[in-house]
C-alpha cells in the first residue's frame, strides 16, 4: 500500500497512470492536472511517490519539482514525458530521488521504475538514519540541530514510518523538552503497527 500523486495535464495519461498504478500496487492514486494544485495538496498531505509530466499547464515540471524541494518535500519523483531533452533530465537530476520514463510505456516498465524509486528511498532513508543517530549521540554542541534537520528530511521521504518520530523524541528529550518529546513518542507508537519500538542501529522495516 503506497500513496501516490499523479500530476499530468492530459486526461488520458492520468487515466492510464491511475489504472496502471492501482493495478500494480493496490492503491488509489490521487490525480491533479496542474502544478499549483499539486503544490497545494503536498502542503497538506504526504506521498510515497509523485509522477509528473515535464509539460504542465501552468509552470514546467522541472520548476514544479524545484519548488517542491524548496518546500522541504523530498518525495521520490518519476518524470513521465515524451519530450524531455537531455538538458531537462540533467537539470532534474539535481533534485534526487528522481527517475525518468518516456511515453509511451507499458505497465511493466512503469512498475519497474516505481519499484526502483521506492528501493532507493529505503536506501537513502537508512543513510539518513545512521547519520542522524551519529549526531544525536555525539556531544558536540550544534549536532542536535543537524540531527533535527536530517530527521525533517526523513519525515518527508517516509511519512508513514515511526522512526523519525522516535528520533525526534530523543532529540527533544536531550533538549529537555519532555512534553513535546512525549507527543512524538506517542505519534511513533501510533504508526508502529508491529510495536517494534526503536533501538539504535535497528534495520528498517520495508513497507
Amino acid at each position: 500500500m503506497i500513496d501516490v500523486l499523479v500530476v499530468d495535464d492530459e486526461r488520458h495519461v492520468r487515466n492510464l497512470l491511475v489504472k496502471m498504478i492501482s493495478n500494480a500496487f493496490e492503491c488509489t492514486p490521487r490525480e491533479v492536472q496542474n502544478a499549483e494544485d499539486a503544490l497545494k495538496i503536498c502542503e497538506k498531505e504526504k506521498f510515497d511517490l509523485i509522477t509528473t509530466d515535464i509539460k504542465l499547464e501552468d509552470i514546467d515540471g522541472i520548476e514544479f519539482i524545484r519548488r517542491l524541494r524548496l518546500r522541504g518535500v523530498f518525495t521520490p519523483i518519476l518524470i513521465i514525458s515524451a519530450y524531455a531533452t537531455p538538458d531537462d533530465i540533467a537539470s532534474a537530476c539535481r533534485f534526487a530521488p528522481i527517475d525518468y520514463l518516456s511515453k509511451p510505456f507499458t505497465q511493466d516498465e512503469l512498475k519497474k521504475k516505481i519499484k526502483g524509486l521506492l528501493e532507493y528511498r529505503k536506501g537513502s532513508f537508512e543513510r539518513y538514519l545512521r547519520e542522524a543517530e551519529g549526531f544525536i549521540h555525539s556531544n558536540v554542541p550544534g549536532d542536535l540541530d543537524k540531527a533535527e534537520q536530517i530527521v525533517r528530511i526523513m519525515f518527508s521521504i517516509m511519512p508513514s514510518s515511526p522512526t523519525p518520530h522516535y528520533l525526534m523524541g530523543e532529540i527533544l528529550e536531550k533538549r529537555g523538552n519532555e512534553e513535546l518529546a512525549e507527543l512524538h513518542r506517542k505519534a511513533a507508537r501510533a504508526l508502529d503497527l508491529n510495536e517494534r519500538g526503536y533501538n539504535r542501529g535497528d534495520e528498517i522495516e520495508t513497507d
Partner: protein
Amino acid sequence: MVTIEVMKLKQINYRLYVIVVGCGRVGLEVAARLSYIGFDVTIVEKSPDALSALPEDYGGFTTIGDATERDVLKRAKAEKADLLITTTGDDPTNYFVSLIGSKIFGITNVLSLVRSKENVALFEKSGIRAISPISLTIDTFERSILEGVELATGDGK
C-alpha cells in the same frame, strides 16, 4: 458499448502493446475498447482535433504526427509493438504504414482496415490481415438472408 467478449478479455488481463493508426470513427472505438480491456495502447493521429473526440475514460497514449513518417512511428515506440492496427480512410496510407510497421519495425501482427474490396488481396499477399467493411457487410447480409429463408421454409427447426 461493451460486449461480452470484451468483458471476457478483461478478466484474462492480456497486456499487449498496440499501436492504432488513425483516430477516425473506427480507430477511436478500437483504441478505446483495447485500453478498456487493459492493453497498452497508443493512438497515432495527424490532426490534434481528432483526438478530442476520444472518450473521457480512454486510458492510453496519443502521438500526434503523420504515421507514414518513420520518426513518428519511432516516437510511438513501434519497435516494441505486439500489434499494429491501421484505420485511416485511405487504403494506400494504410498499406504503406502497415508495411513500414512489419518490414522496418518488425511488428508480427498487422491488421488493416481496407476500404476498397479490390485491395484486400494485395494486403493479404503482404502478410497484412485485411478487414474490409464492404465484405463484412455483404457477408452479414447473406447470412441474414439465408437465415430468413430457413425460417420461411421451416428447415431451420
